[in-house]
């Protein structure tokens, strides 16, 4: 299987090696076409965003106004803070120049003269690696004024790296823009959307690191080639980050639509001790969890996961074996969203705290059956009532976990479960709720 984003080439992070492997040729090819032609190819390729929403990248670019007297901006979202996601750091480390080349092409397509790469502050090492790559590309004349000579076009742009400072919410695009502007990272009300009113009130496009790293191969090898990889409705490869109870956790670049069971058993080496899978969160901690007895045949792409009542998110797959205490896991997830709520909207600010409090009660063994309904009620009242999607991110795991594992939670509350013996997957099959029914 061919790898697109993280090819198996030694020392590809070095600019010389990257150039020897057709590096910086796609940008030249793109610059010989009109921006609209470039956008059109990316649109036809079917490339969808890899940051969580899986929105068509080419369509997003086409929202940028063609005529405006304001400067335009491109933001690359490398905040990567969703628990279970650790894919972008592989790109910073192993293939930074393909990201830079993707940025150069995107800037041309949307007419942006400046691009910011927003990288989470904790990634000190990867910020340094990425900065080195940007510096090398400047020195080689691939970024800045000198690129005009190199690529035979009038177009030039600059790339800067902005270091975050530990706020999960800054991965939300409007919050990211506020953070870049030097403010608290509060999400903005939409509309207006970034393409109309983004950074400093100017048209702005925000794309995920992995999305943009896919662009140079699309330009070089053509959209037809890309659109034939993996699932037709969500083509290309995906960087699946698999963590938790598997023998070989890590990032695997595989075609979209790879079977979840293949991911766990074929690539990640199965579950330690051959234990059963109790629960899988397929796309980072905010995505609806799937029951271990229902992972058979589940494909890992945006459309297929929708069918089973979950979502691809950032493709950060968390696997939990049969001895996992789901109540503790859910309490930990809720602690996270409570901690990261920016506090603007009451339902999220207060609700995330309540969820954490109730779940901690359950962890201590002081919960009741009513608490389970209360959890669902609080979660439901957060959803859709907040400015940004952190509300959903906090509510979904609670609502879906409690609904889909209701039997487990009931037993736990009634103290019928003597951990780690009783929470076996097979004991719950009869009470399992068909997944499609509980999706919104």
């Amino acid at each position, binding site marked *: 299987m061919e790898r697109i984003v993280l090819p198996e080439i030694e020392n590809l992070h070095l600019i010389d090696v990257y150039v020897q492997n057709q590096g910086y040729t796609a940008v030249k090819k793109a610059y010989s076409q009109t921006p609209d032609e470039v956008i059109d190819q990316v649109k036809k390729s079917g490339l969808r965003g890899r940051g969580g929403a899986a929105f068509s990248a080419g369509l997003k670019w086409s929202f940028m106004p063609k005529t405006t007297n304001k*400067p335009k901006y491109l933001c690359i979202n490398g905040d*990567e*803070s*969703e*628990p*279970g*996601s*650790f894919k972008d*750091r592989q790109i910073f480390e192993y293939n930074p120049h393909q990201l830079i080349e993707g940025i150069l092409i995107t800037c041309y397509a949307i007419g942006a003269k400046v691009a910011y790469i927003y990288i*989470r*502050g*904790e*990634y*000190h*090492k990867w910020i340094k690696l990425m900065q080195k790559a940007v510096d090398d590309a400047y020195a080689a004349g691939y970024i800045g004024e000198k690129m005009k000579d190199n690529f035979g076009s009038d177009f030039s742009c600059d790339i*800067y790296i*902005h*270091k*975050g*400072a*530990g*706020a*999960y919410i800054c991965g939300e695009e409007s919050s990211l823009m506020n*953070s*870049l*502007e*030097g*403010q*608290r*990272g509060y999400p903005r009300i939409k509309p207006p959307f970034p393409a109309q009113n983004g950074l*400093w009130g100017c048209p702005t496009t925000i794309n995920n690191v992995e999305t943009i790293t896919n662009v140079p191969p699309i330009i070089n090898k053509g959209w037809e080639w890309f659109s034939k990889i993996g699932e037709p409705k969500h083509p290309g490869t995906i960087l699946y*980050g*698999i*963590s*938790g*109870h598997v023998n070989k*956790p*890590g*990032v695997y670049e595989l075609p979209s639509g790879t079977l979840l069971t293949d991911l766990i058993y074929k690539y990640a080496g199965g579950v330690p001790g051959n234990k059963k899978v109790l629960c899988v*969160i397929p796309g980072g*901690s905010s995505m609806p969890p799937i029951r271990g007895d229902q992972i058979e045949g589940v494909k890992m792409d945006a459309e297929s996961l929708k069918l089973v009542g979950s979502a691809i998110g950032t493709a*950060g797959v*968390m696997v*939990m074996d049969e001895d*996992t205490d789901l109540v*503790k*896991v859910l309490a*930990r*997830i809720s602690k*996270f969203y409570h*901690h*990261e709520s*920016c506090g603007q909207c009451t339902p999220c600010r207060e609700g995330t705290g309540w969820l954490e409090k109730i779940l901690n009660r359950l962890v201590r063994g002081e919960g009741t059956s009513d608490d389970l309904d209360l959890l669902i009620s609080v979660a439901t009242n957060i959803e859709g009532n907040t400015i940004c999607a952190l509300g959903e991110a906090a509510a979904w795991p609670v609502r879906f976990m409690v609904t889909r594992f209701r039997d487990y939670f009931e037993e736990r509350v009634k103290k019928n479960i003597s951990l780690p013996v009783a929470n076996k997957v097979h004991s719950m099959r009869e009470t399992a709720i068909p997944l499609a029914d509980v999706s919104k």
Partner: protein
Amino acid sequence: MEFKFTEENLQKINSVLTKYPTKKAAVMPVLYIAQEQNGWISLEVMKEVASILEISQEDVLGVVTFYTMYHQKPMGKYHIQVCTNVSCMLRGAYPLYDKVREKLGINNGGVTEDHQFSLEEVECMGSCGTAPMIAVNEDFYENLTVEKAEEILESFKNKN
């Protein structure tokens, strides 16, 4: 205590300012430069940053209090961060965190009396595939066991 940037850092700030169309946008990188020089963000640091960037002190305070990576008190020489989020938790982060607490004799947010160590329970650091992990200042230590974590702490203790 009054805070002034060193000459070298003032030059760094000038080069940072060229990246953004407004001075205000440089507040995060400038605060990082200040934290590197001063060790933490004091009220005096915020005043100086505000005056250099020509923004209000409240704006700077707002940024400092929003982001967890700006320290509002002096931290230890070695700032130990332990991730306990789900992926790490599933691979034993809590026993590891307990051991670190026991070994250092401090709790979340605490600083040892000799100011050598401080401890923070952090959210997901992006080491899910190499969990569990601790970070010492800027460096990640991954694929840990309780024993390995102990060894790492010992090695920093012996450095003093």
